[in-house]
């Protein structure tokens, strides 16, 4: 224990004495570690952003989607025999009963339709998604203002609706709260606003499936409505059993209907799918090249300076330092130096990450506009690489140091 502490103390003392030289040699390492950490951080951030994006499109692992269609329609929900409003409500009943029976924590019946709304510049069409309150959690739908749909909204006489920025803009200026919108022939109360950047420039809205199906326009012969489906977010290990049981249960409740349940989240696409790997490998490759150059500079300065310290090693050997101790001390000087340089590089990265301009750039496309904290994995990787570079670069001058002859060094 004392030997280790003493070796680190020796290394720190040497760094203090030769701080000018050390500072110059470590600039390259600092820049390299900053670049490496930034590369890993960007990779991790992009990966988590893409994960959220995938999950917002297809649901979290494992999402089971149950679709039902009337066999008389031949699989075409918009052909003759497509479900009427009453049929859709029956499908919703069957799905909700199945969710209750199996006590599924997160589930949402969903349906979609195109209805008209009264905007500031006239009547326009809007895509409305019928969704349950759990849908916001299942699909990472962050609400920028107000709230998403909640259970108590089922009791409202005027349906609650969550709109996006595109629809709000089309309604004209004014605060979102306490506003209403003429939607599909009924008056709906806006309870929340979603803003995911460019994704929300075109009008879009979310309301409870039954509220959507009850809109006068949804029940007209010209209505463009998808039949309801059920999304259930279940533990991955229960996905296969859940698929079979949901399918069996809902099919049993809907005689004459064809029912199909599939796992639809993106992780069901394949285990090896990693669209970010090429980008991350390129970034890490570039950072590694910078790191190699930094390490070469470090080694060059260290080798030159070590030859000027031969007398010092001789003195230390004369007073009891073993060859191993000299080797470890010189190598530790390099490791301590690169770890300090690495920590500075990582601090620069974290500082840059928190700059408003960088935050604004990185939050583009993130639901709710919230950036996660700096990826600690990137910081730890940066620090470990810094220590490894220090150990490798330090082993060369350390070898030279232990080969120096004590007798010649101290010149009796």
């Amino acid at each position: 224990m004392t030997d280790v502490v003493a070796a680190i103390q020796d290394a720190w003392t040497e760094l203090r004495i030769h701080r000018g030289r050390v500072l110059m040699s470590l600039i390259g390492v600092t820049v390299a570690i900053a670049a490496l950490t930034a590369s890993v951080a960007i990779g991790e951030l992009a990966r988590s952003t893409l994960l959220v994006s995938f999950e917002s499109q297809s649901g979290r692992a494992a999402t089971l989607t149950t679709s039902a269609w009337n066999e008389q329609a031949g699989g075409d929900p918009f052909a003759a025999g497509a479900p009427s409003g009453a049929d859709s409500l029956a499908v919703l009943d069957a799905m909700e009963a199945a969710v209750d029976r199996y006590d599924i924590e997160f589930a949402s019946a969903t349906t979609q339709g195109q209805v008209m709304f009264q905007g500031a510049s006239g009547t326009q069409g809007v895509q409305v998604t019928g969704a349950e309150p759990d849908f916001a959690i299942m699909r990472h739908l962050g609400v920028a203002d107000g709230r998403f749909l909640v259970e108590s909204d089922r009791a409202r006489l005027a349906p609650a609706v969550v709109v996006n920025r595109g629809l709000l803009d089309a309604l004209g200026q004014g605060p979102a709260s306490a506003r209403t919108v003429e939607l599909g022939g009924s008056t709906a109360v806006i309870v929340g606003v979603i803003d995911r950047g460019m994704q929300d420039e075109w009008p879009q809205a979310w309301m409870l499936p039954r509220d959507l199906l009850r809109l006068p326009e949804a029940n007209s012969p010209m209505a463009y409505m998808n039949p309801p489906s059920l999304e259930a977010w279940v533990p991955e290990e229960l996905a296969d059993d859940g698929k079979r049981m949901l399918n069996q249960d809902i099919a049993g409740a809907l005689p004459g209907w064809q029912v199909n349940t599939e796992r639809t989240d993106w992780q069901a696409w394949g285990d090896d799918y990693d669209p970010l790997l090429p980008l991350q490998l390129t970034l890490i490759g570039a950072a590694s090249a910078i790191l190699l150059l930094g390490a070469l500079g470090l080694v060059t300065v260290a080798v030159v300076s070590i030859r000027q310290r031969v007398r010092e090693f001789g003195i230390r050997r004369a007073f009891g330092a073993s060859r191993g101790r000299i080797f470890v001390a010189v190598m530790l000087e390099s490791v301590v130096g690169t770890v300090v340089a690495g920590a500075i590089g990582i601090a620069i990265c974290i500082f840059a990450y928190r700059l408003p301009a960088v935050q604004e750039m990185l939050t583009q496309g993130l639901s709710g506009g919230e950036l996660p904290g700096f990826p600690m994995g990137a910081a730890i990787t940066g620090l470990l690489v810094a220590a490894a570079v220090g150990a490798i670069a330090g082993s060369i001058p350390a070898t030279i140091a232990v080969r120096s002859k004590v007798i010649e060094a101290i010149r009796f």
Partner: protein
Amino acid sequence: MPLLHLRGVTRQFATIDGPALQILKGVDLDVAAHDRVSIVGRSGSGKSTLLNILGLIDQPTTGIVELDGEPVALMGGRMRDRLRGATVGFVFQQFNLIEGLTAAENVAVPLHYGAGRRYWQRHRLASEMLERVGLSHRIDTKATNLSGGEQQRVAIARALVRSPRLILADEPTGALDIETGGRIMDLLDEVAADAGAALVTITHDVAVAARASRMLRIVDGRLEQTSAVAA
């Protein structure tokens, strides 16, 4: 049993284009605890080579070197390093202080390679040793800012900080003026006596050599007794 026991020690060095160079040709020497031995000789006579062997830095080509009755040749390198650190204190002609370190930090260097307890007490022990050599007011002064005499006092404090049983001094006054050199030798004799350590001094200076209880001359690679001087 003598502290150091040398019998028939030879040391030769290979040369690139000629026969091997025979520096020591059968040296016999016993150094007892509390001994005061001085070794004089011309340049190139083998004084430094002998001191390297006495200090466990070098090994003889042939012959026996025993420390406390233990043959040094049978010890591994790491063991020799540990034994050297614990038993021997060096005082060099050119002081050999480490630049950039303060007086106290230089004195504490040997404590980095000793037992754990002494390492953790290194600041106190170094300060006490500097006080002992009259440099309590220079504890935090960088080695390069000290005078020659002060640097040699720091070197003596460093040699003694691990309480060695053998002090090897190589031309300890060689880089100092006569007056300062005299004071340094007084100090070295005094602290070595207080510490109960044997003192082996290599010197050109007959006056310095005469301070020892035994004065030896090295001639053509062999040791000769020249006189017995009362310490």
